[in-house]
């Protein structure tokens, strides 16, 4: 007779944690292979092609870094929120709100001020936009006990419609030939890129600085400790005199604000005008959830996992065209990888022993 017993594992080393993720990703890729097989595509070719397209050439790497910028920014912010068990599913809306605030600032002040002034200003505006959109659900959760998953999601839809309302209405540009979208941002507000690429380096530097900064905030400060207590043991937190509203407001302001930064990068670094929500964001807010999860809620690791998922987006887009796969392929890949990552968590936290016991 074979008996399977499980017991809690307490000594989780970083190496074991890393290896668990590697195995989970591997298993996820095997599962994805079956989906490719079912749609008549050679899975070995498809999977290898994803990584060759994204990491196998200079052009591919440049594109991967470009897409990694918003993922790292948002993913790092989400690690903070998720640590406090604040399920911020609203990064998509927070990104868009950041883009809206940045666009307004650039259009109104951009032609009168030099670049050195306007660029920091639009980043500040973007942060404020994202932060405001982030603290609404925090207030609703702490003050009125309203589930943050629902509110952050509803705010995504509301923001997307609001943005569309702006670009077909009052903000519609005169140079768009009747198509929805604002006029181009003034030159002073356009972010510089590394030569021969679309990498807007100011945002890239910001993403790395924020990840490191958040890491320090979470592990080295009183606030970081409070945020973790809020998530792990609310009762103890109340007893210890932690102000839940204040802690939640700050952490959601940071989480939303970083998504706002990402919005600034997309508008001022990539598109140079405010267009449809789907073109401003392409789902970064949702993909960043997996980025944060793969990073084991460590903002520093979000840099690596952000690059990994940016690679999947770039490679996924490429094979979608070359192999004639639908756009939803990337979503399937993301969903399956996330499922396998959470399955991996089980084997990380539980010791499984298979014993043959004598009858």
């Amino acid at each position, binding site marked *: 007779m074979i008996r399977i017993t499980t017991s809690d594992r307490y000594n989780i080393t970083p190496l074991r944690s890393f290896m668990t993720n590697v195995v989970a990703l591997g298993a996820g890729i095997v599962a994805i292979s079956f989906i490719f097989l079912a749609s008549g595509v050679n899975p070995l070719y498809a999977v290898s092609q994803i990584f060759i397209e994204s990491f196998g050439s200079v052009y591919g790497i440049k594109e991967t870094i470009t897409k990694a910028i918003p993922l790292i920014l948002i993913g790092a912010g989400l690690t903070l929120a998720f640590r406090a068990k604040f399920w911020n599913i609203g990064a998509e809306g927070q990104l868009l709100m950041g883009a809206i605030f940045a666009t307004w600032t650039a259009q109104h002040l951009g032609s009168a001020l030099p670049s050195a002034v306007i660029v920091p200003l639009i980043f500040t505006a973007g942060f404020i936009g994202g932060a405001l959109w982030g603290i609404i659900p925090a207030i609703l959760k702490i003050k009125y006990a309203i589930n943050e998953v629902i509110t952050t999601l509803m705010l995504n839809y509301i923001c997307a419609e609001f943005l569309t309302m702006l670009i077909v209405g009052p903000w519609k540009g005169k140079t768009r030939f009747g198509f929805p979208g604002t006029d181009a941002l003034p030159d002073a507000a356009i972010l510089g890129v590394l030569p021969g690429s679309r990498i807007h380096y100011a945002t890239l530097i910001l993403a790395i600085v924020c990840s490191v900064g958040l890491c320090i905030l979470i592990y080295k400060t009183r606030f970081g400790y409070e945020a973790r207590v809020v998530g792990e043991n609310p009762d103890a937190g109340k007893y210890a005199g932690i102000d839940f509203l204040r802690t939640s407001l700050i952490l959601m302001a940071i989480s939303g604000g970083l998504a706002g930064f990402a919005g600034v990068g997309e508008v001022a670094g990539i598109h140079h005008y405010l267009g449809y929500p789907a073109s401003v964001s392409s789902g970064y807010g949702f993909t960043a959830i997996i980025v944060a999860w793969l990073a084991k809620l460590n903002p520093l690791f979000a840099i690596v996992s952000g690059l990994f998922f940016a690679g999947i987006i770039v490679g996924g887009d490429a094979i979608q065209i070359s192999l004639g796969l639908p756009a*939803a392929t990337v*979503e399937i890949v993301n969903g399956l990888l996330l499922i396998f990552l959470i399955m991996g968590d089980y084997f990380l936290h539980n010791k499984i022993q298979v014993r043959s016991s004598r009858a």
Partner: protein
Amino acid sequence: MEEIIISTIQRTMVAGTPLLLATTGEIICERAGILNLGVEGVMAVGAVTAFIVTMTTGHPWLGVLAAMAAGFAVSLIHAFTSVTLQANQVVSGLALTMLGLGLSGMMGKPYVGRPLAIKMDDLAIPLLSDLPWIGKALFYQSPFLYLAIVLAIAAWFFLERTRMGIQIRSTGENPKATETQGINVSLIRYACVLMGGVFSALAGAHLSISYSSSWVEGMTAGRGWIAIALTIFALWNPGRAIFASFIFGGIFVLQYLLQPLGISPNFLAMLPYLSTLVILLAISFRDPRRLNAPAWLGAAYKRGER
């Protein structure tokens, strides 16, 4: 005028139908203590499966059955991760939504833009449909509407009045105590997640083979998320879900009624989401304690744990 009122009621019922089906399913699931945020994804899988099977076989009811089976199959993922592996239910549900939306997009790609030759016919209830005014609005409708209402009432009866209903509710309130009664908590949770998935898939099937008779990627349009909010609005009671769903159906219809008045269509499209927030706020303002969620909602349960 009479025609406008009749058609408004009619469209309200149509718009409320998928919400009611999905909400009832989510209530059953949450009453057992499992939060399933995968509704939107399961709905999409149900919609595309029902559409493909109906198109290839020409039998809408076969499409419904296939959708139910598909909803069962994909929900098994969430049941396994959240019950067996005690994984984080929020993340697992989100993963299910991503996967479901992705799968539906992939499966449905060859069918985009191809209308259904034989869709689910509306069903006139004899005698009642001859009533003036409400007859046509309420009793000459999609079979899904009747099904949704019957299932919601059945779910209410089942949860509130039967022995198994008590077991489900006590699983959500206190799984430890439930287990000491010799009841298999995991089994109940599995059954409720799968049941919820079948209901969500039915909601999707309504969209693709009865409501619009075509497949469009992303046609669930956030209805799954609204169903999760309606679960709270209905205070985890399928009876209240009937009213809640049709109030929201009315809000969807309001978009079309107000548009001729020159209000921005994007502002009107915001209404369902905005109302969700306003209504949740209103319930909470009246009495936060009335937001009486099952005590163990979202918490994993480990067998034998004290």
